[in-house]
């Protein structure tokens, strides 16, 4: 090969020499023991030495201490055993500088002339690679740390969730206990209220009788005694009915299905429902003609209807109307296919309980049958009312559907399977007692008729002229037509949108100077706290006796 051949612009030998000296990697030729015979310029430059200064030194002397040890104990043996080693990461020691990371390849060769073995060593500058490796290692370490932290966090989280759930369950249990107590309290309060009214009637009747018996009773007094006896008897009967309803309500036993005429059952239940609803909610019942019989446990059905009524009442804090409607219905295949629980298509007795209350949104409506779900404030509801309804209806082979519109009201439809069989029993509801007139000018406003009669009777017996009204509107009418009323004696809580306080305000506006005496048997609502009565306003609690009323009325009139 001539020097002008295309193989070498500067001459082939010169090109190779240039390559050996100046290629961007270190070249070493060493004897088998690693003693350097020749080093290239690139390596010498890295080490800031002259190439000839490196000759005679051992390769391992160029390395940092770890490299030296590992070269002697691992890589030199490796080279001996397999004739080469590849890509060994070592560090070149540089006096006064950080070591230079290199990748080292070595291979055993034999000299062309004498066949003597020697070693070729190639070194690549691996600074970048080492940095990447370090970053990669750091990233891996960080990732492992993060994973470990995440795992620890997960474990902590699980433990915390379990703890929270346990706490939550404990709290719910406590709330449930409170709710039970609240329910018992509400029931007790309601019962006490009703019994107060009835006892007022009964005691009043008995008192009247005893007073008439002081002297020799003439025919007129005997007649009065007879009326008082009738009144007391009626009150006692009402009390007995109430007690029976309470016992039925309280019954907790397996379903005892009987043929039931839902319409009649509702009629019989109206008394209890009215009491449950309170005086601001009007009860309306509509019974469809030719209603089918159904076979359910009547006590549980009553229970369900009372529960629905309670919910309806609570949805109508400002008063409203509850409608109980019965009719015959047919659930077709399309309808039953569309509902989640298995309900056979066929004939059903439908009871619809509708209120004019606040209603609820779709999300709430979907959950109302869940046990313990309640929209009421803590302590106000058990969350079990509607779930009892659902459970009972499902157990009876029926179906419940709830419709609700926020701001309009809620309608719950119970579908009970039709049965064919003998007719059930009925419940008799007795008419209210009659009213009498008298001589002084007191307007008695009381929606409870017996009470009003009793109170009016007492006042008439005391010589007053008594006018009566069953509600606020009626009272206003009386006030309009009679301009000599001295005392307004009114119940506080009354139906039809006008309560005792509003009535009194209106009466005072129309007839300044008129005296006002309130009465109430309703303690649960804490009337005074609600601000319906000003401090100092005259109030007589139910039940009241003849004497108590006489004294109070006198005192108010004289004030």
């Amino acid at each position: 090969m001539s020097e002008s051949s295309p193989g070498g612009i500067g001459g082939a030998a010169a090109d190779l020499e240039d390559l050996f000296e100046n290629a961007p990697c270190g070249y070493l030729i060493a004897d088998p023991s690693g003693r350097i015979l020749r080093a290239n310029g690139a390596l010498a430059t890295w080490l800031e030495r002259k190439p000839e200064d490196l000759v005679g030194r051992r390769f391992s002397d160029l390395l940092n201490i770890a490299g030296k040890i590992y070269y002697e104990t691992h890589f030199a043996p490796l080279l001996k055993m397999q004739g080469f080693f590849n890509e060994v990461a070592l560090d070149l020691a540089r006096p006064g500088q950080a070591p230079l990371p290199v990748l080292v390849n070595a291979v055993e060769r034999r000299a062309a002339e004498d066949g003597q073995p020697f070693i070729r060593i190639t070194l690549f500058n691996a600074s970048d690679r080492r940095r990447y490796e370090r970053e990669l290692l750091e990233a891996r370490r960080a990732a492992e740390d993060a994973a470990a932290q995440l795992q620890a966090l997960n474990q902590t989280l699980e433990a915390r969730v379990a703890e929270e759930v346990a706490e939550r369950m404990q709290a719910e249990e406590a709330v449930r206990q409170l709710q039970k107590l609240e329910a018992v309290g509400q029931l007790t309060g309601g019962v006490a209220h009703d019994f107060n009214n009835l006892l007022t009637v009964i005691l009043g009747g008995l008192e009247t009788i005893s007073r008439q018996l002081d002297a020799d009773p003439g025919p007129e007094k005997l007649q009065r005694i007879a009326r008082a006896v009738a009144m007391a008897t009626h009150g006692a009967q009402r009390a007995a009915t109430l007690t029976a309803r309470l016992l039925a309500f309280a019954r907790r036993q397996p379903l005892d299905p009987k043929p039931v005429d839902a319409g009649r059952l509702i009629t019989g239940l109206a008394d209890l429902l009215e009491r449950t609803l309170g005086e601001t909610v009007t009860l309306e019942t509509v019974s469809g003609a030719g209603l089918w019989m159904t076979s359910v446990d009547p006590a549980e059905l009553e229970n369900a209807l009372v529960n629905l009524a309670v919910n309806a009442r609570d949805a109508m804090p400002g008063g409203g109307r509850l409608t109980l409607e019965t009719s015959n219905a047919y659930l077709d295949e399309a309808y039953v296919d569309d509902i989640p629980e298995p309900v056979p298509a066929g004939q059903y007795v439908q009871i619809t309980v509708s209120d004019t209350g606040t209603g609820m949104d779709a999300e709430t409506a979907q959950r109302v049958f869940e046990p313990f779900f309640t929209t009421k404030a803590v302590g106000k509801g058990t969350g079990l009312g509607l779930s009892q309804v659902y459970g009972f209806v499902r157990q009876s082979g029926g179906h419940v559907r709830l419709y609700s519109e926020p701001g309009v009201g809620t309608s719950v439809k119970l579908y009970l399977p039709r049965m064919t069989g003998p007719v059930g029993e009925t419940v008799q509801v007795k008419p209210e007692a009659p009213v009498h007139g008298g001589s002084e000018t007191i307007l008695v406003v009381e929606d409870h008729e017996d009470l009003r009669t009793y109170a009016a009777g007492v006042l008439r017996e005391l010589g007053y002229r008594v006018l009566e009204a069953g509600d606020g509107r009626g009272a206003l009418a009386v006030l309009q037509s009679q301009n000599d009323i001295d005392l307004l004696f009114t119940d506080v809580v009354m139906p039809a949108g006008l309560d005792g306080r509003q009535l009194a305000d209106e009466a005072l506006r129309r007839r300044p100077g008129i005296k006002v005496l309130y009465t109430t048997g309703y303690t649960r609502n804490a009337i005074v706290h609600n601000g319906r009565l000003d401090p100092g306003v005259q109030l007589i609690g139910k039940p009241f006796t003849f004497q108590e009323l006489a004294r109070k009325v006198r005192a108010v009139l004289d004030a």
Partner: protein
Amino acid sequence: MTVIDQHNVHISGAGPRPMMLAHGFGCDQNMWRFVAPAFEEDFRVIQFDLIGAGGSDLSAYDPEKYSRLEGYAEDVVELAEALGVRDGVFVGHSVSAMIGLLAIRKAPHLFSDLVMVGPSPRYIDDEAAGYVGGFSAAQIEELLDFLDQNHMGWSQAMAPTIMDNADRPELAEELTNSFCRTDPDIAKRFARATFTSDNRADLAGFETRTLILQCAEDVIAPQAVGQYLHRVLPNSELVLMEATGHCPNLSAPDETIRAIRAFV
């Protein structure tokens, strides 16, 4: 798994007397591949890997036990007993020279001759005692720090499964320097156990016939160390070899064989 299996034992040779070849810090029993055949005629040659090295059972590696050379010495005793070795020759390279000495102290009946190739009872200088080990404390500290950095290029050179070349598995074996397989973590611990060892106290009263093979220019165990050993061990013979470096068994197998043969 028996102690024999755990140590990847290979036995060759027809001779009556056992010769146990122990590799040192670095690689595995392959270190003896040029020397062992020379003794197969006269000896029952036993080659093995220290636990943690080469083909040994890595699961048997107990960091606590092998943090000291005694742990390896216990293995040698157990292994020799299991193989029925009596009055054998123990040839220990590098750190295994001291391991062999410790083993013989525990069970003198096993070996009547000890060959130490590049031995060192302590690698770190002890100026107070006027002892030259070849390394300063700072250098060994630097070594251990470097190993702790555990950078990949380093371990990649020796780790058992580096190149996961699914297409050409035979390539992976060849390229990963299969003669020198070492688990990086174990290699680190082995380096610490080796280079922080000090067995000078174990030399006193050691009566077994001992051959010390000292290479020229051995950075790991310099000539002063060989001379120290020869001085302290009363029944020892020191041979200064022409071979350079730390591994005459590889770089100068013939000279090594001659020296051992002359001794035994």
